[in-house]
């Protein structure tokens, strides 16, 4: 059966997503992995205003208020806390210097701050050692690094398994690798709820599966994927495992000692940090299997005209001058997040998300693409083009995402030209949602 379900890189099986009428069926099967400490609270009345106690820490909201903008696109990028902005300015105003190479005092100070940021990332992920943290330009670059750095492990006929809901960043590097090496790219279908179907995964992840790459939390469907089961399955088949935490890392803290993956990637900019900085976390045995992929700068150990030797991870995978200021600023973001009550943040996000879903359900003709667990909601409205809605929401200062959300294969399989997505951050509040719902109502009045 495995052969029948397998297909080459460029062919896509029609059954790789199961759905009805363009929408995943609602499921009450909630066994999937949620971050620990996520509370279940059902007592908020719809009239409460749900203020965010942390909103004032993010100066962007004063600017948005002046400009009449309501920001509900945090899944695309998050706003930045003042603490991060201060650190960024402090680094440059205090005197920039390159890292890891100069003997002078500014260089030492920059290097210390840069490496301290690496340690903060390791601590945030409970990774144990900072040696496990490679800084990249973003989650996308982290995944591309893996697709090149692991290429030597694949032989023609091997398979790579990815979820049917992957963001392009966790699909295309593997698609290209499969094309380069003559591999089979297996797409793990989704079940009726919009999660990777474990029964089918059991059949599709076989002895020739060398690597599994899956999202932790879907950027379109907003559902936590059944990672524990998938990772255990892939490991039992001897496959390397890659988790795309671009969305998941933002909602709840994840302990990478208990999450049994070889590699975990995310972007700083979605986790209230600066853009241009990403993280690749690898287990030591997994990092050792990576081949170098970009060359030059501090990754070099010894170089001559015709041969060179390179450093191990993490520095060996940070060619050129890294994003020093961004890394230091991200360290400040993590200090800030660390200072918050994580349970209170999760409770606030959960209450807002329930409010969002309740409000959306009250809109006639609105269909959710799936029943999201948290963070976001994607939807379409019967008889209304998503581009028209996006246009009229933007006219009213509502910043939500419309289109295909960098997941064209998933949207195509759903038979949708696009969808709208509302996404939340810890600074979002009930007034944001009220303005969104009022604007949605006016837009629909115009369009219907």
């Amino acid at each position, binding site marked *: 059966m495995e052969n029948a379900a397998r297909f080459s890189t460029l062919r896509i099986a029609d059954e790789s997503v199961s759905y009805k009428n363009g929408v995943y069926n609602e499921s009450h099967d909630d066994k999937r992995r949620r971050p620990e400490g996520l509370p279940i609270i059902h007592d908020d009345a719809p009239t409460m205003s749900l203020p965010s106690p942390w909103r004032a820490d993010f100066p962007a909201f004063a600017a948005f208020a002046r400009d009449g903008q309501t920001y509900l696109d945090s899944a695309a990028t998050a706003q930045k806390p003042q603490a991060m902005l201060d650190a960024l300015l402090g680094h440059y105003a205090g005197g920039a210097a390159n890292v890891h190479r100069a003997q002078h005092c500014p260089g030492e100070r920059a290097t210390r701050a840069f490496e301290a940021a690496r340690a903060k990332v390791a601590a945030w992920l409970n990774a144990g050692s900072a040696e496990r943290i490679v800084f990249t330009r973003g989650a996308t670059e982290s995944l591309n690094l893996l697709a090149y750095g692991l290429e030597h492990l694949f032989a023609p006929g091997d398979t790579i398994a990815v979820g049917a809901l992957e963001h392009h960043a966790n699909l295309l590097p593997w698609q290209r690798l499969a094309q380069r090496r003559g591999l089979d790219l297996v797409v793990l279908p989704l079940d009726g709820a919009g999660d990777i179907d474990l029964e089918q995964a059991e059949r599709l992840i076989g002895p020739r599966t060398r690597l599994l790459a899956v999202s932790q939390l879907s950027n379109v469907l907003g559902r936590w994927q059944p990672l524990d089961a998938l990772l255990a399955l892939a490991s039992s088949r001897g496959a390397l495992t890659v988790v795309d935490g671009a969305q998941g890392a933002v909602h709840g803290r994840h302990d990478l000692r208990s999450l049994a993956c070889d590699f975990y990637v995310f972007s700083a900019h979605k986790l209230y940090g600066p853009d241009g900085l990403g993280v690749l976390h690898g287990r030591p045995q997994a990092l050792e299997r990576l081949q170098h992929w970009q060359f030059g700068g501090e990754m070099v150990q010894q170089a001559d005209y015709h041969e060179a030797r390179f450093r191990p991870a993490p520095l060996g995978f940070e060619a050129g001058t890294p994003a020093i200021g961004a890394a230091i600023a991200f360290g400040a973001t993590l200090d800030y997040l660390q200072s918050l009550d994580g349970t209170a943040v999760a409770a606030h996000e959960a209450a807002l998300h329930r409010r969002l879903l309740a409000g959306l359900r009250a809109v006639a003709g609105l269909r959710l693409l799936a029943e999201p667990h948290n963070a976001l909601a994607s939807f379409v409205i019967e008889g209304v*083009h998503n*581009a*028209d809605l996006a*246009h*009229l929401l*933007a*006219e*009213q200062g509502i910043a939500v995402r419309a*289109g*295909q959300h960098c997941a064209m294969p998933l949207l195509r399989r759903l038979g949708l*030209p*696009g969808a709208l997505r509302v996404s939340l951050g810890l600074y979002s509040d009930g007034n944001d949602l009220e303005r969104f719902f009022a604007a949605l109502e*006016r837009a629909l009045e*115009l*369009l219907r």
Partner: protein
Amino acid sequence: MSLPAAAGEALEAFARCPGWEQRARLLLQWGERLEALSDAERCSANQVQGCESQVWLLGERRDGHWHFRAGSDARLLRGLLAVLLARVDGLDAQALRAVDLADWFARLGLSRQLSPSRSNGLNAVLQRMRELAG
């Protein structure tokens, strides 16, 4: 340079629109004026690449002057296409190359629809018109 007659009409109509809501209603009305494309015409060969929403464009030259028809599934985009077609209807290839899209939409109070992050692809549509006109 004198504008096509329909362009003058568009300028007059949009000039009377003080707010986004009236502009949106007017765009929806203008979108209704687009001549419907047949299923056969809504084919990939006529599709304009670079638009997030699907846009089809057909052009024909009569006596050296170009006439275009366009369609989209998105209604407001149909309106934007209609005011673009009004601006370019009957131009020759040289005049088509001289059309300043940003200026035209600014005069209609629709500049926001052309901002770089908006992916409705009106620039791609004009580009395609120029390619068709050669």
